[in-house]
């Protein structure tokens, strides 16, 4: 059950998108999200949809992986849609009891849903095609200017990459402890909220202890391998832009420009 979470998972295959510099993919993802909020007409969404579909196709990642990642946000999606549907003032279409669905409401709810879905697909495309280490490398490099403002960029990047490495391990551990406590008659499901929260203690205490133990071990192992922060460090896989990365940037800006033009300025 816990293994179904695909957000932040890497799908191994070989494609142009996999080979792109992570900085390109990060910038592209941000631009894509911007584009989703820029466009406000059908043409714009059509461009975004076609663009996204092409990228998914090129990436070689099976579409069902994206859908799997979606399951975790279905709830959020429904809430966003319902709120927008009923709470947007405007021209009434249907009125049920005290709730009114407006024309504007339908429009905004639909836009919201499409944006959210595209946003999730777009960002999972990035995580599915980029190894987490690569991704943190990209972030570290992109955010390097922030070092001037004393932001510990390297440390943040290292923390993220460690967190990502340990997520699957801790999930498995959670599963194991849960089963062990169920075998001792623990109940994680029934009862009211307070009882449920109390019931989590036998799970959370061992989990925290284990996480701290692992953190301690890992810190020692890193020190034993001469880790001393970002200084003096070289890179096994330094980030170097290739021709494909420049093309990637071009494509992205081209896409954003056409989104702005067709999706916003030109009123179709």
């Amino acid at each position, binding site marked *: 059950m816990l293994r179904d979470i695909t957000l932040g998972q890497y799908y191994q295959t070989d494609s142009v998108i996999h080979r792109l510099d992570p900085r390109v993919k990060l910038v592209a993802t941000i631009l894509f999200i911007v584009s989703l909020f820029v466009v406000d007409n059908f043409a714009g969404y059509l461009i975004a949809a076609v663009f996204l579909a092409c990228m998914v196709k090129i990436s070689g990642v099976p579409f069902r992986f994206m859908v799997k990642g979606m399951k975790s946000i279905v709830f959020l999606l429904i809430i966003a849609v319902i709120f927008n549907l009923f709470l947007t003032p405007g021209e009434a279409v249907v009125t049920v009891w005290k709730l009114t669905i407006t024309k504007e409401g339908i429009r905004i709810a639909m836009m919201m849903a499409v944006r959210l879905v595209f946003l999730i697909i777009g960002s999972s495309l990035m995580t599915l095609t980029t190894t987490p280490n690569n991704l943190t490398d990209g972030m570290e490099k992109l955010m390097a200017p922030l070092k001037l403002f004393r932001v510990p960029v390297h440390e943040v990047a290292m923390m993220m990459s460690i967190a990502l490495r340990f997520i699957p391990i801790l999930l498995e551990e959670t599963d194991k402890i849960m089963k062990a406590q169920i075998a001792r008659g623990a109940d994680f499901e029934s009862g009211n909220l307070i009882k449920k929260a109390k019931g989590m203690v036998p799970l959370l205490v061992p989990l925290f202890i284990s996480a701290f*133990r*692992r953190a301690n071990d*890992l810190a*020692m192992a890193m*020190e034993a*391998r001469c*880790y001393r922060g970002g200084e003096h*460090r*070289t890179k096994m896989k330094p980030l170097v832009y290739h021709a494909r990365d420049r093309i990637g940037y071009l494509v992205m800006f081209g896409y954003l420009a056409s989104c702005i033009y067709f999706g916003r300025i030109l009123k179709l």
Partner: protein
Amino acid sequence: MGIIEAKKLIFEYIRRDEDGNVEGITRAVDEVDLDIRQGDFVAILGHNGSGKSTLAKHLNAILYPTEGTVWVDGKDTMDEKYLWEIRQSAGMVFQNPDNQIIGQVVEEDVGFGPENMGVPTKEIWERVEESLKAVGMYKYRKHSPNKLSGGQKQRVSIAGVIAMHPKCIILDEPTAMLDPNGRKEVIRAVRALNQVENITIVLITHYMEEIIHADKAFVMDKGHVAMQGTPREIFSRVEELKELRLDVPQVTLLAYELKKSGIALPDGILTCEELVQALRGVGKWQ
């Protein structure tokens, strides 16, 4: 002077109660002398809590002696200016395979040490390749460590240390969490490094069958060295080992029992072949 030397090494830690008041002092390592030569395969044995892991952590400056001195490759571990050189020349592999792999991909993890040392990119790749080949994990270089077996993970950890080109590798119970196959894999890899690359090995364990190929073994108890000698010498002292919460391989125990029953067998038999050979001389069969 050997690659690792310790003189009157003492390590104490202070126990405190919940309010931070001193409850007492525990001496985890008690006047230990070690002299390990380059290229040796040394085993340190001992039951849980005998101080063997604490001792190991002194050998690459993770812990510092309370009293006494440890030299690694002639450098005093207390001297801060040698810290990184010491950690580079004495690499360390820990018990839990999950808690020492930093990389998300096998090759990235092996490259972590050289990256920290500031090795140029091209050379990192060369080192990663040769290290992974040395432990037989090259074909897994693109894999996620999470998908490997325990023995494979430990071999990756060993490769990560070799990539730093150490003179010596200290393995702190590398097999305690593995199944018998994983244990064999790891020990085989370690022996190969010792024999082919002439890397000094310090293996800390409580599995007795893992040390039969060691040049020298130390048995720890209550922080001090209770026995030392070749595995053969150690294994011939079955009763003492049992008192130290250890045991001997079944074949050694069988030879010991037979000897007690009056059959003239040499001391400290370590393998099945040796026992069969020795019995052959005795029983005059064939």
